């Protein structure tokens, strides 16, 4: 199964896992889910859109990461998944 991870579970970071999939699936587990859950989803969708990815499974375990950290970890995971194909 094609997948890759990036990030950590330390404070203000997040662990992002991406997996090849037949559809778009986003799973968010966050210490601030009630307050920033929507914002986190928006960041993920934004990155996927800019990367032209429509079908993928993204899981994130978030410990209060800021938007740019979530973006960075997701981009890194996507990049790593791609590299595995080369």
């Amino acid at each position, binding site marked *: 199964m094609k997948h890759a991870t990036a990030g950590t579970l330390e*404070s203000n970071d997040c662990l992002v896992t991406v997996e090849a999939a037949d559809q778009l699936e986003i799973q968010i587990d966050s210490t*601030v889910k*009630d*307050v*920033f859950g929507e914002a986190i989803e928006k960041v993920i969708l934004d990155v996927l859109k800019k990367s032209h990815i429509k079908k993928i499974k993204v899981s994130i375990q978030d410990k*209060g990461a*800021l*938007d740019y950290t979530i973006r960075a970890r997701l981009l890194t995971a996507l990049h790593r998944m791609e590299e595995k194909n080369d």
Partner: protein
Amino acid sequence: MNLIKNTLNRQIPEGYTPFQGANNLIKTNERKIIDEVIIGGGNKPVESDIASVFDKLDIKDGMTLSFHHHLRNGDAVLNLVLMEIKKRKLKHITLAPSAIFPVHEPMVPLIKNQSITKIYTNYINGPVAKAIEEGHLKELLVMDTHGGRARAIESGELTIDVAFIATPAVDHAGHGNGIEGPSQCGTLGYAIPDLLYAKHKVLVTDHIVDRVKKVDIDGRYVDMILHIPSIGDPEGIKSGTTKPTRDPIQLKIAKNTARLIEELGLIKPHFNFQCGAGGTSLAVAEALKQRMTANKIKGDFASGGITSFLVDMHEKGLFEKLYDVQCFDLEAIKSYQRNKHHLMISASEYGNPYAKPIVNDLDVVVLGATEIDLDFNVNVTTDSFGHLIGGSGGHADTAFGAKVTIITTNLMKSRLSMVKSSVKTITTPGESVDILVTERGIAINPKRQDLINKLKDSKLEITTIDELMKRAHHITGEPKMIPSSDKIIGLIRYRDGSIIDSLYQL
């Protein structure tokens, strides 16, 4: 439940007196004091098991039992009484412990089965807090300040049937103190109102001597002594103080707080100070100590919960007296034993608004917060999600009394801004709060033009509280407001017994 609003625009249940301002105390409670309950002199009966105490005092359904929290998370006395309540299947008991800690977990099943239906306390966290916030307590939880609890007891509003007073050392006349014995805890300030005004008083001890060295508990008020193998775990008792923080953000906050106090011209001879026992507060005390030493300033007193840091400052001649309502660690206990200007004060002398309390003589108090809002209202009772994690303790008392009240907190914790448009629960009203110090700036309450003027040439990063919230949101993103549920499960009382806010079920 019908609701009304108080002057802070918070909803409270109808039928209770709403908060009307820190300077606008309920007049009907103007120092009303009931008669002290004096038992008399002579030797006191010594019981060796809790069952005899319950029998002899005829403890039954519906009674109110009280406890102090000087043994903190090492306490074994409250749990002993709970076991007996459980054994006898008593119902509708009201508990009035001055604080509740994780060690008191055995209370949870008794709350759930309604053996215990009402609780009055000043500070609560752990499993009991969780059970209450989930709505298991039948009646409303009542949270007072330390000064407010003393007021409630001495005015007769909170009537105590039996006070179980954990006392580390006791003699046969019923005199006691907290400085001798294996479970020593230092001063016993929170126990005094219970000792004076409860209908019945039981000293619970693990150390009986012929004659106590110091009489902090006067035997004339005592009905009987319960002598058990151990009243608590010394490790749990002595570990109230943390170390000064090493977190660079909190250190920056502490450094700027000390600088601020200096720039306000507050560090001068005869100055009076109080701070908490947390990491940031201790770092502030450390920084103040350096300045006072360098400028050879001697303060009059430091007060509150006494820590080894304050003891050190006292012994170095930086504070002439220590007014101690609670000892947080072994150094504080030892200092109380040997330093003649380390004095115990009762909860009433400490913070009762009707009693000319010590807090009114404070120049500066440095306190924490879980949240603060744009009106400078402070929450130390719940976290941002509404979990019950503490309570006023002396927060609202000292904030009112001190000439300058400074709140220190990180601006952001794990993506959450600590500055909110509105706090989840108001513990201390904004009118008592003067300055907020964070790592990204300092905000002064606009009501304090005098302080704003004093600091106009300061090189410290001084801004408005609105600006601080903006800065935080710029970094974290706009937070979504989490609404509270509709069900009120508790009342936050101000020092005079008026209701400053409600607690909602999670």
